[in-house]
């Protein structure tokens, strides 16, 4: 080694250089594997942890009357929301506290009461952090104006427009239209890919509930980018939501209004339908309720007022109220007897009462109608006559005929509320009361009393079927298919009953029928039947006044059933009210 040459060999330098080069190449190769070959996988992993999919609710379809009148629609609603990302703190509890303080501040400044509990905020932070928190829903114009003016003072708060349900007709047809509640959207089958669902309106009663799936819009999709803690950083719409279709109903608002006017101040119900196709023109129940009280949310006090009211305004009496139909049931008894071979012209001697196994039923006519045939028995509503023919044919024949007219089974109405009522027989009584069936029971139900129960809707179907000869399934959706089934009765048999019912209104000669008030001024011939059902015993004994009819008598286009609780009698209380409704349909005088 010559002088001046290093004691450290050059080889070391080359070895070091080689090691460095190998190391750098090793890194380059591995980085290429991660960044080029693996890029797709890591991109997916990155997106999966930072992108949330949100299902957005579509605008709910409207509910319309048959003439296109809006019964349930949508209106724009402004809400003040809080964006949690603006209140991020290190700890979750501090974040919740910061949001709450922000809400308190905004509330105090623009005069809105804090609407959310600490618990609700906390739940939002832990479950739906990436979504805006709705603090005040459906805020009034004045508050929105104040807020917008000073928006810069309220960072993290914003006004958003959503849709609220609105019911332009208020309480009209409230039991039919129904109302909606706000639902946290839930995962449908195949929707597991979504992380969040925006709150959606869900039908809770009436058509809103029955046709919920039809009315609901087609959901859209939004994507949100969230940070490591779950705060939303930005979002964009992937698929726009689509509004749901409108539901056109069969309701004729003119008729519906007339029916509700007649029931004002009463407890009762009125059903009008077209017996040819089952279209329900009016379905009224009184008392009703204001549908707009349910928007944006039903206040607990209003709900309590509705549920505590002994008049039960939320109950749909028209299709969900089961009443003893009283004498309006007599046409059914008459048809059952005719079907069993009872001669239509045979006279029965009415003494004013009917004794049967230890009990006595009284007739409307205190001293009896004397000799009376079926037509006149219907006209005069003779109780002993119908008790007699029912006992004559027996329970089985009676029940079979009643069943053929839909008594004891649901009508098939496209509404959640559709009670079957009760058509009792021996087996039913044994099952329900543990007692055997007596002939007196049959005598009772033959005149629509006792254990027999039917809804006004069922009675409207029955009376319509008598008028047309076919039993239709009532429906509320305009484009629902028409369904009907034939009756087991012959035209001659039906004609006997039709004659009797015609006489109930028109009378005979100078003698008035029991329901004459219903035909007064309608303009078309009306056939019907009155009924006065006695319910309860002793102190709580009261009378429900009924009237059922179809018109015009020879080619019916309307069938009506009307009941008023605690009325005087069918003829005095119910018949004139039904007459007014019929005038509304046929344009008679005095509407």
């Amino acid at each position, binding site marked *: 080694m010559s002088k001046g040459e290093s004691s450290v060999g050059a080889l070391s330098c080359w070895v*070091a250089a080689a090691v460095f080069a190998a*190391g*750098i190449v090793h890194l380059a190769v591995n980085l290429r594997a991660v960044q*080029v070959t693996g890029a797709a996988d890591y991109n997916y992993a990155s997106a999966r942890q930072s992108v949330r999919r949100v299902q957005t609710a579509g605008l709910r379809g409207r509910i319309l009357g048959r003439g296109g009148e809006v019964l349930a629609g949508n209106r724009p609603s402004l809400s003040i929301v809080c964006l949690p990302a603006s209140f991020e703190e290190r700890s979750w509890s501090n974040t919740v506290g910061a949001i709450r303080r922000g809400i308190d501040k905004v509330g105090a400044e623009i005069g809105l009461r804090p609407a959310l509990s600490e618990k609700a905020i906390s739940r939002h932070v832990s479950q739906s952090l990436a979504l805006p928190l709705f603090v005040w829903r459906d805020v009034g114009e004045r508050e929105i104006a104040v807020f917008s003016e000073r928006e810069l003072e309220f960072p993290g708060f914003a006004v958003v427009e959503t849709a609220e349900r609105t019911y332009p007709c208020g309480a009209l047809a409230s039991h039919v239209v129904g109302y909606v509640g706000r639902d946290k959207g839930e995962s449908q089958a195949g929707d597991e890919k979504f992380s969040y669902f925006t709150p959606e309106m869900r039908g809770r009663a009436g058509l809103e509930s029955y046709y919920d799936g039809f009315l609901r819009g087609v959901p859209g999709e939004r994507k949100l980018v969230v940070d490591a803690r779950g705060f939303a950083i930005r979002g964009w719409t992937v698929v726009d939501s689509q509004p749901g279709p409108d539901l056109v109903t069969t309701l004729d608002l003119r008729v519906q209004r007339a029916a509700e006017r007649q029931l004002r101040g009463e407890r009762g119900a009125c059903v009008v339908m077209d017996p040819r196709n089952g279209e329900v023109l009016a379905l009224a129940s009184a008392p009703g309720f204001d549908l707009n009280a349910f928007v944006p949310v039903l206040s607990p006090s209003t709900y309590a007022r509705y549920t505590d009211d002994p008049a039960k305004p939320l109950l749909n009496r028209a299709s969900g109220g089961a009443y003893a139909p009283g004498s309006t049931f007599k046409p059914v008894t008459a048809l059952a007897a005719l079907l069993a071979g009872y001669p239509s012209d045979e006279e029965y001697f009415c003494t004013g009462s009917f004794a049967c196994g230890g009990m006595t039923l009284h007739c409307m006519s205190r001293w009896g109608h004397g000799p009376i045939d079926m037509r006149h028995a219907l006209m005069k509503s003779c109780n002993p006559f119908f008790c007699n023919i029912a006992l004559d044919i027996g329970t089985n024949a009676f029940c079979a005929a009643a069943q053929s007219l839909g008594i004891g089974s649901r009508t098939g109405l496209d509404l959640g509320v559709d009670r079957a009522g009760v058509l009792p027989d021996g087996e039913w009584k044994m099952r329900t009361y543990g007692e055997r069936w007596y002939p007196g029971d049959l005598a009772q139900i033959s005149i629509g009393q006792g254990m027999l129960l039917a809804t006004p809707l069922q009675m409207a179907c029955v009376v319509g079927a008598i008028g047309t000869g076919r039993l239709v399934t009532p429906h509320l959706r305009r484009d629902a298919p028409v369904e009907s089934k034939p009756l087991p009765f012959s035209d001659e048999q039906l004609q006997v009953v039709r004659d009797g019912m015609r006489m109930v209104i028109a009378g005979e000669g100078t003698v008035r029928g029991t329901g004459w008030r219903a035909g007064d001024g309608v303009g078309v011939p009306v056939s019907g039947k009155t009924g006065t059902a006695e319910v309860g015993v002793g102190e709580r004994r009261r009378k429900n006044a009924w009237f059922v009819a179809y018109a015009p008598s020879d080619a019916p286009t309307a069938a009506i059933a009307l009941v008023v609780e605690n009325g005087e009698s069918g003829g005095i209380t119910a018949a004139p009210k039904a007459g007014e409704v019929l005038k509304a349909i046929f344009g008679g005088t005095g509407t």
Partner: protein
Amino acid sequence: MTFLKRFDWLMFAAMAALVAAGTVAIWSAGNARAETVFHGMWASNLATAAVGLALYFALAAVDYRRTLDFLSLPGYVASLVFLVAVLVFGTSVYGGRRWLWFFQPSEVSKLFVIALVAWLFGRRRVPALDIPVDGFRSFLLLSAAVGAPMLLILAEPDLGTALTLVPAVVVMAFAAGVWRRGLVTIAAVGGIAALLVLGAVYEAERPGVSAERRELILRYVPLKPHQVRRVKVFLFPETDVTGAGYNLRQAKISIGSGGLTGKGIGRGETNHLKYLPQAISMNDFIFCVWAEETGFVGSAVLLALFAAVLACGCRAALVSQDGRGRLLALGVSTLVFAHVYVNIAMSIGIVPITGLPLPFISSGRTFLVTVMCGLGLIQSVTIHREEQLA
């Protein structure tokens, strides 16, 4: 002017480019943090680089032999004093006492150890003691000189920093020819011991091993629980992605999702959405930020710049006519290489996660100044390559 004529412009340009890249990465990582104090971190990094640059030129201008003669021993002793002081007065960060006032003595001491080793073993005989470099006594001297600061750094505790000294010292010792036979033996024993530890952790942590057996094996493994965890994440990266493996998983997602060309400067999602651990995104995980935003192209550029720096270091060693110069250039280059390799390799799971900064890119001020001084010394070796008359 020999200074300007021999000045290694390539190495200087590569260094400047690396500092610029680092400033950009720090800007992006700082902006992602909620605390506004970090938003200006890039500016303070530039200020630190200015200080480093001043020292760089000073060290480059002065003959490194003079620097070594005057500074290596006193500087080494001073760094030992600081290492003791940091254990007594230091500020505790993330469970280790590493900070003294505004700097980390352990980072500075790396350079002084390298300088001392170069000064002691760069000639045929050790100065002052006058013992032959290739003898056993030299080995004892080397062990003592390197062992003292390493033990003090281990006491902080900072295993990663302590271990980065090893490759530099080993390379220098081999190059200087200090007791080669013994060194080979020790290296072999050390390698076998490391493999045994790795094997033991593998045997203890592999799926389906009973708790008692795991306990029994780990009792004989000389690692702390958090170190065992890191080795486990290295061996089984997919086992615990929300716990100990979270950092590695997020680091890999960052780098991998950068793809070929990256997401754009300042637009790295895992960084800005805070999936990348915030506490270390500016320091140990800064490469993830860079790689995510500039993609494989950016990573390759960074590797090329490092390669240029290392090549210049090797060239400096090669052209130097002096053993001290060669050792100095090799030592500093190896230190830089070890940091670069371990830092990037741990980010993609090739080596266990260790808290090591990436030279010129991470935001550590002490380390930036230290590495720039190291490059200044290499520059000096290039410029003053010939033996000068004393």
